[in-house]
């Protein structure tokens, strides 16, 4: 029981693992990890079956939770200060509380398993290796918010994950953890797995809801379509990330107050950091929020940078998070606590990363070393967002492709210094002007890469191409002539 683990280890100031759990060779957690959500990932002798899960104490928290009132569970989650692990970091208990108290419509819960923010790969392992942890968390959350129908929206690229989840749901139903009158509590719940079809925008909760309604996943305007009031089928709907929902059972295990003692104030609990890119040992590391710095993460957990390489930049919270430059200085704290720190000393928590001008986002840390061309990296990111823009609203639809086209040229040596100015202003013209947060997601990389690597980007341009505007305009004229031609056929 990690309850004891917490009490024993944290109170003693030690962070160690339960000695009786063995992990697969080569996949042993780092000694400083606190494996709660990922306790069973890569565990020797572990499988996805419900028997294995129950033997390990699984569904005990469901039994406990069903004896509590829904409000009590919500209050525990609120007290725990659990912040959403999907990207926005919004407190989950508060979100649940947004369901109008006078509501008479059905309430739905959706587990967002669309894991699609580049650099993030944590939900994959929960789903594939520990599906019942998620289901137990979901049943508890549904009981708390009063949902009798829930969906797991899983990305299409996890076909095996979908099968595993469906099997797990069947097992749970067979054991009366799902279905009618769960464990004799009188509470009914059905959970279904809904597979996406390869669209990043479905990670946005209202886009996800539209997708689940069988429509194009166009995000909805807020107001009025706040999911907690007008979500799926215009009924109150709670959308939570996989990792977030898994935490619910662990919160019940120790209670919100105790749980909140892990991590840092306002940045409670553990979270899984996913590190990829130019490090020796990329991977996932479950740590207490804020207990590890960027430097520790890169050097201690990930074995440092590759031989002979030095750090150039880090994207700390999924590809949409603003990039941090290796030699930047950041200011943390206020008043007497104020201090200037380097990138290596940034604590990996929500508030610190926000204070450094970026975000913890989805926990996806992408490390970029000095072998990389910034133009190339930015272009790769811009390609992603241009491909994934849903196209519903003007700034993102037109701007994302425009930015990609400029950086395509930049990489091809066909951009002028003026193009960098245009690129920057295009990003700012998207930022804050769109229906959903995709606008920021696609603008922030460009904004931050230009702000921090302007000289390098301009170094990749050719100033003699500035005069090329004339040529380009004649290209436009040619396009005009073409459309003229097609019209003249009609006439």
């Amino acid at each position, binding site marked *: 029981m990690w309850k004891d683990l917490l009490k024993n280890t944290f109170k003693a100031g030690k962070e160690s693992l339960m000695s009786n759990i063995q992990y697969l060779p080569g996949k042993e957690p780092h000694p400083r990890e606190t494996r709660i959500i990922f306790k069973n990932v890569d565990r020797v002798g572990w499988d996805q079956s419900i028997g294995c899960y129950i033997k390990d104490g699984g569904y005990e928290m469901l039994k406990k939770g069903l004896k509590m009132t829904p409000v009590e569970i919500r209050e525990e989650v609120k007290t725990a200060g659990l912040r959403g692990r999907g990207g926005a970091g919004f407190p989950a208990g508060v979100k649940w509380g947004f369901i109008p108290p006078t509501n008479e419509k059905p309430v739905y819960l959706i587990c967002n398993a669309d894991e699609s923010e580049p650099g993030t790969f944590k939900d994959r392992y929960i789903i594939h290796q520990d599906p019942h942890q998620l289901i137990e968390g979901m049943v508890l959350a549904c009981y708390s918010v009063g949902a009798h129908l829930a969906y797991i929206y899983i990305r299409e690229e996890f076909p095996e994950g979908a099968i595993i989840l469906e099997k797990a749901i069947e097992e749970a139903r067979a054991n009366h953890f799902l279905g009618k009158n769960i464990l004799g509590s009188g509470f009914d719940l059905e959970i279904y797995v809904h597979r996406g079809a390869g*669209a990043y925008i479905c990670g946005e909760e209202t886009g996800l809801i539209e997708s689940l309604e069988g429509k*194009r996943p*166009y995000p909805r*305007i807020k*107001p*009025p379509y706040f999911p907690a009031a007008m979500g799926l089928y215009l009924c109150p709907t709670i959308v939570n990330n996989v990792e977030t929902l898994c935490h619910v059972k662990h919160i019940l295990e120790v209670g919100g107050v105790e749980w909140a003692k892990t991590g840092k104030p306002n940045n409670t609990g553990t979270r899984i950091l996913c590190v990829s890119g130019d490090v020796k040992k990329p991977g996932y590391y479950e740590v207490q929020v804020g207990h590890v710095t960027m430097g520790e993460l890169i050097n201690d957990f990930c074995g440092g940078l590759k031989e002979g390489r030095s750090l150039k930049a880090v994207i700390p919270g999924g590809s949409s998070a603003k990039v941090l430059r290796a030699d930047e200085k950041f200011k943390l704290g206020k008043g007497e606590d104020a201090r200037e720190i380097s990138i290596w000393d940034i604590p990996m928590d929500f508030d610190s990363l926000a204070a450094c001008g970026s975000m913890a986002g989805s926990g996806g840390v992408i490390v970029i070393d000095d072998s990389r061309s910034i133009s190339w990296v930015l272009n790769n990111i811009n390609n992603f967002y*241009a*491909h*994934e*823009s*849903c*196209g*519903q*609203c*003007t*700034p993102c*639809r*037109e*701007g*994302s*492709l*425009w930015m990609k*086209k*400029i950086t395509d*040229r930049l990489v091809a040596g066909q951009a002028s210094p003026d*193009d960098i100015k*245009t690129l920057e202003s295009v990003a*700012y*013209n*998207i930022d*804050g*002007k*769109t*229906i959903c947060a995709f606008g920021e997601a696609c603008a922030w990389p460009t904004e931050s890469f230009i702000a921090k690597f302007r000289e390098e980007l301009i170094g990749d341009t050719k100033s003699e191409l500035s005069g*090329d*505007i004339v040529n*380009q*305009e004649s*290209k*436009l004229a040619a*396009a*005009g002539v073409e*459309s*003229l031609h*097609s*019209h*003249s*056929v*009609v*006439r």
Partner: protein
Amino acid sequence: MSQDLIDVQIDGKWHKFPKGTRMIEACRLAGVEVPHYCYHPKLSSPGNCRMCLVQMGMPPRPNPGETPVTDADGHLPISWMPRAVIACANTISPNMGIRTTGEVTESCRQGVMEFLLANHPLDCPICDQAGECSLQEFSVEHGKGESRFRDQKVKKPKNVQVGPRVRLDDERCIMCSRCIRFMDEIVDDPVLGFTDRGSHTTLAVHPGRDLSNNYSINTVDICPVGALTSNDFRFRMRAWFMKETDTIDTNCGTGSNITVSTRQGKIYRITPRRNNEVNSDWLPDSHRLNFHWIHSDKRLTDPMIKDRGKHRIASHQDAIITAVDKLRKFKPEEIAIIASGRMTNEELMMVRLLKQQIGVKDVDIIPRLGKPDGYLISADLNPNTHGAKSVLGLKDPGASLENIKKDIRSRKIKALIVFQEDLITGGLFKTVDLESLDFLVSTYPLANPTADLANVIFPAACWAEKNGTMINVTGRLQRLHQVIEAPGQTLKPWEIIRDLIQAFGGKTGFYSSMDIFSQITREVPDFAGLKWSDVGPQGIPLLKTGITIPLLEREKQRIKEGKIVG
């Protein structure tokens, strides 16, 4: 209802608006235009074009125990949000501030304009929408005037025949989704949709289906750019050359409000005109396209008199004298009059006076019933059945037609005057019936089988060539306005009847249809006390018929549910 009014500051001035008003509508009421593309008051608001972004502010929340300081007028200070909000879908709240000018709003507009134009073809000179294109208009006001877009524009399908009456240029489409929403929400025929995604998003009709709905051209009306164009109108006339006249549609009893666009006496296009009590913003294709006959060579242009079985052109005077000389030879009970539910109240009043002048017993109109479409087209295809009932005192229009026919066959009726109807094409009368008459007078805009048999024919003005009033199926009194001049010696029906009355020795003293209207208000109880000027451009409710217009009822429901502004 003052408790439902709330204070909102728009561009520095305070106004009061009803609670629940959308920000964009509050601005409109304050006389401030907020540019927009996707927003349409009759459709749901997806907020996708982002053109209506404005800066918004609210009074700061006072610290506990602190009383907020108000200005000299009693208003709270406003703290402005750095991030703009869409004015179309957000409603006002008390003490809100809206800035439609200033750096935040203007930079949003400039940015959105530039994005919209980035992939939009620069083909205004050959675009049919030019002159009435929102993209052009807002470009002038909010655009940069230069293009920074140096890359290849996205290629999309051009000149796609999406339906029998509508054509699509996808490269011009700005993906506002108005047309899709119209087909989904208003006419329940969701054949349009977006395919692909991102900047490649393409408006499309499903392969093998088409946009053939009888309301398809409304999508052209609401398309803010030149993406959807009307096959009937495209490339026929530049928008800026046309004169617009407001009048009403006469294809059915709904009396949809319309605007007729003309140039040099020729009608080029008919578009719906907003009237929330009649046709909302919409018009059936079948109605709006039913005008080409007005300019056809089938028009009668001169009065005709039949001499030894052959029609010859006559002067109006000759035709009047010939008709009346002949009619005088019959006893009044040997004459019948058939008027039309397509005539204006004023024309029908003249019929009533002629009837009195001659002493005719039988007057009726031809009922014209069709299948209501459940949207705007009413079962009654006459535009003024209720006017005929009221002015002619007909309890059951068409009830005496069978008697008239019987009396013609039994030669009790020997002369017939037919106003604005073709008795034969409608199938009510057979050629032999009319051939058994001794004398037949006909007025009509077009050559027709009844006129063929008539002894005297008067070419008469059609709906677009005259003024007057009509009462629609819901009992609403509406005005018809003359749009164009009638061809040749064609006169307005009321003028023809006036001349007939005068030739019979009667006096009228009418110089315009307005004069006749005054007479109606004196003689017809339903109209008592009304003045011509009471009937504004939107008409006024006059009778209680109990009939409703299905499309409007559904619209009212959507307004109630807050789905649309209305």
